[in-house]
């Protein structure tokens, strides 16, 4: 039913692979919406990383331990339920940590409860692996995701607001357009192009496309 396999790669290799050829945002294009809507400053980016990491870790561990026994149709809903359980206290904390940013975000924060990245990782990996491997996978994904979120948040804050973590830094004129969703898409697109160029040069195995469909394979339930 559920296949388990040992992690044959070393820990370091797992992390670099997750950040480069298996990058969740730039290569697999999952979990993009929260970055575009939320990563407009370093502070929000850090909060986004924290919340998403918590949701991902909890969901993956729960899937590996327990949820894989449930049928597919129920599992997807349970990811969302778990996500809400994590996001609710996290968003209350975020409100104290950065009240201005929270007010600006509005609907985006509760929507973090369900993230395509979480569903993909749980269905593709956590369901078929033991807890130890799953935690390692979740951590490497969090590492890769955090890198790109912090990068996008920092670039947008520096160019869009002229500050970095609310400290005025950049003497350049503020390009407020970068704080809008289209600015996030532009930066993500350029970063994605750069990473793909780098991956194609240094990782020949990158050409093998990963299957990103979370519907069931034959013979599974």
């Amino acid at each position: 039913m559920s296949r388990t396999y040992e992690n044959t790669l070393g820990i370091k290799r797992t992390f670099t692979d997750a950040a480069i050829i298996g990058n969740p945002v730039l290569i697999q294009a999952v979990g993009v919406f929260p970055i575009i809507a939320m990563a407009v400053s370093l502070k929000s980016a850090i909060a986004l990383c924290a919340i998403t990491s918590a949701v991902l870790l909890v969901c993956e561990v729960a899937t590996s331990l327990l949820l894989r026994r449930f049928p597919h149709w129920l599992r997807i809903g349970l990811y969302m339920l778990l996500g809400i359980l994590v996001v609710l206290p996290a968003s209350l904390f975020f409100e104290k940590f950065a009240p201005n940013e929270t007010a600006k975000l509005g609907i985006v924060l509760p929507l973090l409860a369900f993230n395509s990245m979480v569903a993909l990782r749980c269905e593709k990996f956590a369901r078929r692996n033991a807890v130890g491997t799953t935690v390692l996978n979740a951590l490497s994904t969090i590492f890769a995701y955090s890198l790109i979120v912090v990068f996008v948040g920092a670039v947008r804050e520096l160019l869009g607001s002229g500050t970095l973590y609310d400290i005025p830094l950049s003497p350049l004129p503020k390009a407020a357009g970068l704080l809008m969703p289209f600015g996030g898409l532009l930066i993500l697109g350029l970063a994605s192009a750069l990473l793909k160029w780098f991956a194609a040069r240094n990782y020949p195995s990158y050409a093998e496309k990963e299957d990103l469909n979370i519907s069931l394979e034959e013979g599974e339930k």
Partner: protein
Amino acid sequence: MTDENKNIIRSYNTDMLLMLFAPAAVACFYYGERAIRLMLAAVLTSFVCELFGGLLLARRANLRSMSFVFNGLCVALMLPASVQYWMVIAGTAFAVVFAKLPFGNSEKSPFVPAAAGLAFLTICWPDYVFRFPEVGSAYIGEGFVGGTSMSSMLSDGNSINDSLVSLMEIFVGEIPGPMGACCIIALAGSAVYLLIRRWKKFLTALAFLGVCAVYAAIFPRISAGAQLSVIMELCSGSLIFGALFFMTDYYTSPDGLIKGILYGAAGGLVAMLLRSFGAYEDSTVFAVLLMNAVSPLLAGVGKKIIGKQPDASEDVIYDPLAGGEPVE
């Protein structure tokens, strides 16, 4: 890209540059050295960005097509003369780096680069883009004499009167407005050249302006009557400039007659709707970009209306996956 294609593009760009000559000359006439410097800054930025893009993509930049001159000049001419240099540089750099390089640095960009550059400037710094100096006054430094452009009068519902601006001044372009997009006579000259060289593209521009005129006559934003509303709407902002230089772009505007007219007419409607209900005084570039986005959808339309198979060579459909062709 075959040699034949290259030649077509080069001759097309030469036409466009010749058409740009008239508005550029008028800008130099009214704003003097300042206009020349702004245009030089834009063209130089465009040139550097294309060279840099060529290095990045490990392809030789296609500088002989002269599109870098066109992009730079268009961005500069659609801005007020009082604008700072960094804005011209930012707009041109955005146009090339974000609207041209990602699509292979070739001519086949799905969006008109100069329109994208100006749209970026409009979104980021609307105060600077829509603050026009009075013609002939000091327009550099902090204390320049701000003029009231017709697009701001229209968006305020402020009707024109003869003592304020005369029709003659509107036609010769002696009113506050974008550097190169104000002088209607110069633009009319460019339009005549377009009619002689490429009458189908001319009809696209004409359809664009025609729909704008009809819309302005039916739904005037000022209380001084339909006739004045039409004149003011058409001559304000960069409507005619956008129609002549952006709606007629070689790759983004469809090639067939019916398709071209439909494209232009739809663009005119979008431009006027954006002007009436949008956030900015002048939204021509946004209308152009929106029409660029739907342009591939229009490829099959002509066939349905006339009931004949379109010529395969006529359809220039942009395929984002194919990317730009390498330059030999």
